[in-house]
């Protein structure tokens, strides 16, 4: 594996990006239980539709099946996982131990995250770890692969974990002017690709990408833009008002509101259906618009607890069938 045609990891996602195809990744949140059928069902919605699926690591600091366990189930289902690893729950020993296990079990993409603060989740009295931050984690992943040594400097005694290394980016978080620079830091630390926070504000994202191109970072890593279908006006307003690093322009809110304009308030199901259909249409148009921006290598479709929306979005954007690599 380690000498496979110059590929770093040989993952489908890496091959797709290397071949110059517009990449598509999705998201899979493991269950708050041991129910593997839940994961297999979600995999069914995404198989053949995305090149890789992010398997979240105790997302929003709520305990779920581990990203390692759920990633292995995805592998069994023929879906390529992008395993997430937060700095919140593990120190450098635990992270590296899980990398070894993940690679041995067929995981080929690893995404380094700081992790949501535990105060947002269901164990707010927990102690957080933060031995490393996400950039230091990226460096550790790169050194394990390219220098075949552990974080401490000791050599890996046998097969090294060769991951296609990912990171997250928040183009609209503050201070906005520092964000392209931070992306450059992530590239230098070892990120091969990055998935952004949800983008609804295209002009703001274009401005970010201008600076990213000026720094040449888009040539050092692949930028996958985060997109997600709105389920309705409430979700749009929540994103606008309560999620740091996301701005939702007024015209976006107005359009999703307008989708149910002719339907009486008491017909709740009909209104929701209209909003969701419009949310999918808007997401498709957004992808088409973002795709035109130089330096955008793909999209990361986040349809949280709405996996069945991914296929129509990807199809609508003209990205199916996925190219064979």
């Amino acid at each position: 594996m380690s000498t496979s045609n110059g590929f770093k990891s040989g993952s489908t996602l890496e091959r797709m990006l290397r071949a110059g195809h517009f990449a598509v990744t999705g998201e899979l949140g493991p269950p708050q239980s041991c129910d593997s059928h839940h994961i297999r069902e979600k995999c069914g919605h995404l198989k053949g539709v995305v090149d890789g699926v992010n398997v979240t690591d105790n997302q929003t600091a709520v305990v779920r099946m581990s990203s390692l366990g759920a990633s292995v189930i995805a592998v069994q289902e023929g879906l390529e996982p992008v395993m997430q690893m937060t700095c919140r729950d593990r120190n450098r020993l635990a992270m590296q131990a899980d990398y070894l296990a993940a690679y041995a079990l067929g995981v080929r993409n690893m995404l380094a995250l700081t992790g949501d603060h535990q105060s947002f989740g269901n164990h707010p009295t927990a102690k957080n770890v933060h031995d490393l931050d996400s950039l230091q984690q990226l460096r550790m992943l790169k050194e394990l692969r390219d220098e075949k040594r552990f974080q401490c400097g000791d050599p890996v005694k046998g097969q090294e974990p060769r991951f296609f290394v990912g990171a997250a980016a928040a183009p609209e978080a503050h201070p906005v002017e520092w964000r392209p620079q931070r992306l450059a830091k992530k590239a230098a630390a070892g990120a091969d690709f990055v998935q952004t926070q949800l983008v609804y504000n295209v002009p703001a994202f274009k401005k970010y990408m201008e600076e990213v191109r000026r720094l040449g970072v888009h040539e050092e890593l692949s930028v996958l833009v985060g997109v997600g279908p709105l389920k309705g006006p409430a979700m749009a307003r929540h994103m606008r008002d309560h999620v740091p690093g996301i701005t939702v322009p007024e015209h976006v809110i107005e359009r999703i509101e307008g989708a149910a304009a002719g339907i009486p308030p008491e017909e709740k199901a009909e209104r929701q259906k209209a909003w969701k259909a419009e949310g999918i249409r808007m997401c498709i148009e957004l992808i088409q618009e973002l795709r035109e921006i130089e330096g955008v290598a793909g999209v990361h479709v986040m349809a949280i607890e709405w996996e069945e929306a991914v296929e129509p979005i990807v199809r609508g954007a003209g990205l199916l069938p996925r190219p064979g690599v």
Partner: protein
Amino acid sequence: MIVGEQKPLEEITASLGGARRVVVAGCGTCVTVCLAGGEKEAQLLASALRMATALAGAPVAVSDVTVQRQCEWEYLDAIRDPVKAADAVVSLACGIGVQAMARHFADTWVVPGLNTTFLGLPEQQGIWTEQCQCCGNCMLAQTGGICPIARCSKQVQNGPCGGSENGLCEIKRVVRDHGVPVTRTDARGKQVPVTEDVECAWHLIHERLKAKGRLDLITGLMPAKDWSTSRDGGPRRIVREDLLLLDEG
């Protein structure tokens, strides 16, 4: 300074273990300055304990005494007599003073009257904030004099993370009174914690370095931190050969 906050009276009373004679010991240094455990607070707590135990039908004789520093043996020697005469001592010093007292007076039951909260400074009268976590490997030279270890919610060393907005961290701090979360009733009639905004340390670092023309300090990767100088290396100790008193003769 070391900042502390008094424990709830009920917790202190419960920790006395049935003692009949109690000394409340104040400390004249940090906890005096932060108005949590000095002479005045020792007197007030002694009085409150007398009243509480009398009301409960089991009156306890409570006196108070305050020393300059509970973390130095010579000051503790000066209160040997009142301490020896008591069944229990409520130390209003920080955790260092409580431990020094317990070690120096091994036969006496010593309990804390404060929660030692953090190393910090008074922002203004009545408000203190944490500034240092004693990681043992100071990085303030790289971060413009603002500590991300003590002041970033995730101890991010290559920040700011994606949760920074308008100079604030995405997390909210739970407001506490004597260590206990303050709650309010929300619109649904449910008790929820009262919270307040937290500054984003990395926003402050970025602003300061930008103003100083030193953003170059945070352009490169801050490598993985060596935590062995922190608590993670076990209880820490400093030995200064140049200061050791030689055994004469």
